[in-house]
């Protein structure tokens, strides 16, 4: 590989990451809008938000936080491994990340199912009987954790593709920016959860 070639590659490498960060900022703004909506209604319905929040399971919320933070660790380690030419180890860490992502979604599934079973879902008669504040809380809860869940799902699909590419050898220590960018996406979804967790589960 001549010098000019590798220089071009470096430019592409930085450019790809910058592009990814730009995209992540639009994601941040998407969630900022929803967090704003949440804080305005929380200041208007403090008691109701508190009452509604106490119905959510702190245990499941904490468990999911631990799962997602750990998945971020395995994600970072997979990028680290591929940089050091350890493709197999990277593949294992990518697989672990996907596993933790699925684990998170499974918990979310059971959590939502239990709530829906108890008659708490958008526009349900049981919820409407509780009044405006709780309806707002659960409306935002389903909206925000739902959109977040879709992002986790998208991250899982992205990582599955990366696993295939790693296995094929098209991701390696010379060309790993696609894995790194997938990692950036995964970590951002984690950052958003870091804020969602106290906002919905820990209102004291």
């Amino acid at each position: 590989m001549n010098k000019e070639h590798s220089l071009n590659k470096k430019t592409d490498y930085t450019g790809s990451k910058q592009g990814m960060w730009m995209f992540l900022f639009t994601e941040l703004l998407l969630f900022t809008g929803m967090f704003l909506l949440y804080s305005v209604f929380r200041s208007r319905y403090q008691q109701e938000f508190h009452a509604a929040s106490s119905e959510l399971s702190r245990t499941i919320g904490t468990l999911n936080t631990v799962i997602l933070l750990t998945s971020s660790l395995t994600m970072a380690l997979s990028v680290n491994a591929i940089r050091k030419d350890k493709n197999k180890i990277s593949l294992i860490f990518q697989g672990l990340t996907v596993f933790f992502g699925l684990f998170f979604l499974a918990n979310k599934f059971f959590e939502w199912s239990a709530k829906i079973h108890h008659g708490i879902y958008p526009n349900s008669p049981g919820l409407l009987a509780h009044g405006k504040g709780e309806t707002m809380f659960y409306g935002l809860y389903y909206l925000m954790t739902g959109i977040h869940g879709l992002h986790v799902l998208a991250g899982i699909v992205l990582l599955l593709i990366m696993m295939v590419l790693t296995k094929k050898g098209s991701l390696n220590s010379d060309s790993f920016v696609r894995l790194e960018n997938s990692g950036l996406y995964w970590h951002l979804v984690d950052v958003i959860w870091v804020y969602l967790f106290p906002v919905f589960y820990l209102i004291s």
Partner: protein
Amino acid sequence: MNINNNNNIGYKTYLAVWCCLMILTAATVMAAGMGFGRYGSLASVLIASAKAGLILLFFMHLKYETFVFKLMLLAAILTMAVIIGLTFFDVGFRDGGR
């Protein structure tokens, strides 16, 4: 030019960051259980921001990126701050500051 140059982060660093994240998670759950009221929500936002900071700096490698990346993030955060600030300003003074 080697694209691997800027990355000498070891497994130990990542593990240490993960440990900090776990401790902060435990701290935020415990703080919520103590019932600090108004200060409680402030504490949970501050702890969440510390966690987000750790993820951004280490897991997302922001600490090891060039200045441009940090400037980009700063611009995004400032944009969010303006949007959040102006919205609160609006909502806070609606209906004569009810």
